[in-house]
């Protein structure tokens, strides 16, 4: 079976974002089922980065990289953080001859990420099954904080209409999947992230290298930038720095921050995130807006790290009160600081959280359950095309 897989944020290895975690999980699933997808990524990268990516995914059929600047129309629209513009960018991508050529090659299954990539369907062959990994209700994320209800409704209407163009829409957040269904989306499937429990479990006391008390991992996405700033202003600077705490920030979020504080280390993009987690005591997830599931919280839990976060930071992670420390950062910054200090000081407490959180991840978001759910969604699509239950045949083998 031929699969075309599209990812819009550049190379998803090394993993630097929640979306990359999801994409990596998709590819792992396909690999486990014996498929070799054709991978298409939109974005820029150095030759070294591309080589590293292709090396990591050497088992796929091929990798195609499309830099946005290849087309003025694509670049012009892709640089603007706007739902309509991103849709227009992808419509323009589908018109670029070399890209259209790749998209239109024979394929059985087209697998796209994010609703704004729907215009790419214009170029895919007729008859191919179409699956969308929605990740979040992304249209909401394009709106600034506190958008008007009318504009939000407009964006939701467009996104839910686009879902109808797919045979199946995967949603990582159970509440959002239910919401979409209430709004008339009949092809959505709640697909919780399959996560591995990492070998960075615990390990702080034995880790070598520079150690940190806190770490925050995030892309340069607006909510991440805002969250880091607010945490710094309200909690870290006035209440934790004086206790000698050290805070590491990982990811492209560093590009948007200017703390200039010796107690804060901007690590930027790192090759080995597991190693950073290993050298850190506590993970903070100071998010105040966002949709979908907080992958970074799940990731931290999977690494056996205690997490201190906001109510927004546990979205899509139900009933995790015993596994994650949740506070209203705005309303009680002193309490947040005290909780963090307590966790940093108590190894026993950290290990307790480590055991509870990894057990939670295995139970609710483990890779086994993920694979079974993906089979349930994809098998009807595959069998309708190939006339056999290809997935189960491979699995049995």
């Amino acid at each position: 079976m031929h699969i075309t897989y599209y990812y819009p944020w550049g190379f998803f290895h090394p993993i630097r974002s929640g979306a990359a975690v999801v994409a990596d999980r998709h590819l792992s699933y396909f690999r486990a089922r014996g498929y070799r997808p054709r991978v298409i990524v939109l974005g820029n990268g150095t030759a070294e980065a591309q080589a590293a990516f292709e090396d990591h995914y050497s088992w796929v059929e091929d990798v195609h990289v499309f830099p946005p600047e290849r087309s003025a129309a694509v670049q012009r629209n892709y640089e603007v953080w706007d739902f309509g513009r991103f849709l227009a960018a992808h419509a323009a991508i589908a018109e670029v001859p070399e890209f259209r050529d790749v998209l239109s090659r024979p394929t059985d299954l087209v697998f796209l990420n994010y609703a704004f990539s729907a215009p790419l369907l214009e170029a895919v062959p007729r008859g191919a099954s179409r699956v969308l990994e929605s990740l979040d209700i992304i249209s909401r994320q394009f709106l600034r904080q506190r958008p008007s209800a009318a504009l939000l409704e407009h964006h939701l209407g467009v996104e839910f209409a686009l879902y109808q163009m797919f045979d199946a829409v995967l949603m990582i957040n159970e509440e959002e999947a239910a919401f979409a269904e209430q709004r008339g989306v009949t092809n959505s499937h709640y697909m919780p992230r399959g996560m591995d429990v990492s070998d960075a479990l615990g390990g702080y006391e034995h880790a070598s290298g520079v150690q940190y008390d806190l770490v925050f991992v995030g892309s340069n996405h607006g909510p991440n930038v805002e969250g880091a700033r607010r945490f710094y202003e309200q909690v870290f600077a006035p209440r934790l720095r004086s206790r000698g705490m050290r805070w590491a920030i990982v990811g492209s979020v560093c590009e948007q921050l200017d703390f200039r504080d010796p107690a804060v280390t901007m690590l930027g993009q790192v090759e080995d995130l597991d190693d950073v987690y290993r050298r850190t005591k506590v993970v903070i997830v100071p998010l105040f807006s966002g949709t979908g599931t907080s992958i970074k919280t799940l990731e931290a839990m999977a690494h056996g790290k205690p997490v201190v976060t906001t109510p927004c930071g546990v979205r899509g992670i139900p009933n995790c009160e015993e596994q994650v420390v949740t506070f209203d950062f705005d309303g009680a910054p002193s309490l947040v600081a005290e909780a963090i200090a307590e966790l940093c000081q108590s190894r026993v407490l950290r290990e307790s959280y480590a055991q509870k959180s990894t057990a939670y991840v295995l139970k609710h978001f483990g890779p086994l359950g993920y694979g079974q759910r993906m089979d349930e969604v994809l098998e009807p699509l595959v069998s309708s095309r190939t006339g056999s239950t290809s997935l189960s045949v491979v699995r049995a083998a």
Partner: protein
Amino acid sequence: MLGNRVTEPAVKRKLVILNNGLKDHRGHYFETSISLAEAARANGWTPILATHATCRMDMLPPWLSVFPLFTTDHWMVEPPAAAPDVAGAVTSPYDRAFTSFEDVQAGRAALITWIADRFDLPPVEVHSTSEATLDDGHSAGLSNGWRHRIAHGACGGLHQLRRAIRVAQRVAWCGERVQFYLVPPYVDLLLRRFASVMTTPLLLTIPRILQPRFYPRLEERLTEVLTRDRGDTNGSRPVEKRAREELSPDPATRQLMTAARQRLTELGIRKEFDHAQLFLRDLERLTAMADIGPRDHVLLGTAHFRELLAVDWFTSRLGRERSPSFHLEFRHPLFCGDPSEEAVEASESLRLQRGVFQLHPAADRSQRIRLYTDTEELRAEYELLTKQNFGVFPIPFRAELISSRSTAQSGPLTLVFLGDARDEKGFHWLPDLIERMTADYLQPRRVRFLLQATLGTPAYNPLSGPAMTRLKQFPLSQVELVGEKGPLSPEKYYELASKADIVLLPYERNRYRAASSGTLAEAIAAGRPAVVPADSWMSSQLAPGAGATFQDFESFVSAVCHVVDHYARYRSAAETHRREWLKRHSPAALVAAIGATELEPVPAALSAA
């Protein structure tokens, strides 16, 4: 094109429930809107609710698509609300390609065409230097106007000022700590007392620009300037802006609008024209943003002639092929007494209303507008006055939320008053009624009163306020007041209605001669006897023996007592009648009536008498 689908996608019509007066739970607007939306959804429509811009969103169900776009309400007492920021979305329906999503799915149209119908995408050749980046999360299209530059610079300056103030606050904190530890406690105490006394006068001398508590408001205003410069009418003065602009680029529509402006100005009600213009703008936005097309229907459940004018202009310009079907329901009575030509001639108000209705073209050019009332009596009034054809719609409500109440019960009968406490609803009669019933009914615990006490605007209800004061003096075991603090939530309202054994409607007969009553509709559907004004629509709806009528206060008291004395008989008749009522009046019946119009042409205007 996408054409990949073996079967044609199912076409779902949209039913837009437009109520620009809907802001909260008050009145029946909320209940009727939700009940209609539920019925539409159950019958295969896609319901959309369009409300006032300030409508509370938290009270609305998540499954319902809601557009709080309308800046004017029914009453025009308050200034128009600020238009919500909708930058980035297409807000004008006139230039759309009207590509349906079904056509996209079936491969008959390109997705990008549909996208361009929904989003305000800049022309390919325009290169803007002020496009937003991932950093600030702002949508594109900011212009380089001078207001934008000043506002942008001011925002930057504000941040610098905030930073400086934070530094000053830290210095002050250090100083306070030094004082605490190094200054003798007595002196410290004196200094603190002095500071607390001087704080207020000091604040009055410090410019507000230096007081951080004003920064959120300042930033909000600056942001409003930024968004206003996008060229939309989002802002505080759309009417003046429209006045400076040509009324409409379409000659026929411009003619209609010019005639309306002139006529309404002559009649001394120019304000109605201004509000009609605002309604038109908001209607245009709704149609574009909700992707409403010729297969869809728009119901204005509480319409006035100003909305009719706006709909005329809208459909005139948009044209028959692209307009949705509009159903305007007029629910306010026109005549104080029996309707007649003589009454029209004798009333300046009625002649004025006839004059404005004449602005509605006798031949509806778009053939997309139908007019209705909700009672036969009201239809007769409107047809007499306007010489237009009106239909009659069923009354929608959610009676299933009123729980059944056994007739075989112990304890006093509960007499209930529901709805806002207004003079026209006879709220001021209640204290006297209660006093008259005290000896023979209240004290022997044969009855008790449960009254919704949500007071209407005092200026328009001068009698209800004092009545409320009197009611509060009765013992709680005899008279219970509910909802004094504000409109009842739907749950509380139906909880109250469910407790009723008898529903009291001491309404002013002249005001309610022809008008419907949602409260009565609910009472009949729940099988509860009611006491209503005689010779009114309400009395015509009561089945024989299912309630009692009155002509004045004395007969009102007598009617209530009679129903109490023969309650079992009244209750039995009311319960028998409810099934018949429900066959005619329900949300599903109204939705079906709207759908049935697709098979009928728009009726022509009545010939002149």
